[in-house]
């Protein structure tokens, strides 16, 4: 199932990808696609504004580098504050995912119990 990446999650994901090493924008997009096995869809045009915000906040630094093939690319790397922030944001995302899983699990349990009770009532009615 292909799902569009939420805009608010993009900066944390970008920081996490750059935590593995410096990359240019296109490589960041491809890495997100590879890691999600194509399940996460990123509007690639929104990547560059997100990179600009991270640069403004001093979390990443971009430098233009000549490439072996093709045009020069702007390569981004985490700064030291960026490394720390990456840890905080990725942990916050994980905690959020765990919380959602817990809540949805409880809702699922509740629904299953409601279903059992319903079956029990039906069973009583049938035996009566």
């Amino acid at each position, binding site marked *: 199932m292909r799902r569009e990446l939420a805009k608010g999650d993009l900066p944390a994901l970008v920081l996490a990808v750059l935590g593995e090493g410096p990359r*240019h*924008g*296109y490589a960041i*997009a491809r890495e997100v696609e590879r890691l999600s096995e194509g399940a996460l869809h990123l*509007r*690639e*045009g*929104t990547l*560059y*504004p997100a990179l*600009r*915000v991270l640069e*403004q906040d*001093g979390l990443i*630094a971009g430098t233009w580098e000549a490439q072996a093939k*093709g*045009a*020069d*690319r*702007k390569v981004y*790397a985490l*700064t*030291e*504050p960026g490394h720390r922030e990456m840890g905080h944001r990725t942990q916050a995302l994980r905690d959020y995912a765990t919380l959602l899983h817990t809540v949805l699990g409880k809702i699922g349990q509740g629904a299953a119990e409601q279903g059992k009770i319903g079956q029990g009532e039906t069973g009583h009615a049938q035996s009566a």
Partner: protein
Amino acid sequence: MHSLLEDYLAEVAARLGPLPAKRRAEELREMRAHLEAAYAAGLAQGQSDDETARDVLAQFGAPEAVGAETVAVWRRGVRLDRRDFWGAAACALVLMFLLPRLMEPLQTAYFHRYVVGPLLFTAFFVFFGGVIYLLAGAAASLLFPRRTVAGIGLAWSIHLFWIFHVGFRARHAGYGVILTQYLYFLVYALIYGLFCLLGVWLVSRWRTARTGRARVARG
């Protein structure tokens, strides 16, 4: 590059009007590099030119949205720059006016220059004042890194104007004395301005060593 991609970039460029020319060119250069790479990758998978170009553009997003978001982020940067410019100016100005109050007791001592000698006292006066301005520059740079030099420049200009204004109020002393006083103040102001910039530079070097990237504002 495919004409669809060129047309796309032209549409985005039309929406980047508020950006300065250099910044606009850099944004478009980065987008162009991305589109070229995506297009080449699509062609390598055996797709046709037109199909690849359409897929690449669908993946990239509508030019209106991309343009609007790019401009919004640029405006955010401008707001941060403006905040840091006025913040650095205010911080430096407050310190430039307040910290010299610490020197007032020494000014009384100046009249006892025969005790320490005028040259030694002047050197100490300059050094102590320099430390104050160095701290003002360093504090402004620490708190407001994006437009520090420009902000401090404004603060220093205001402070210099105030010093000259105060000096001029003593015009009853005669213009010869005033001129000497102005020259005296100007030399001190220039030296203190350099100390201020030294404070900014030291913080910049420290920040570069910590983060691997200079954060001192452009002028």
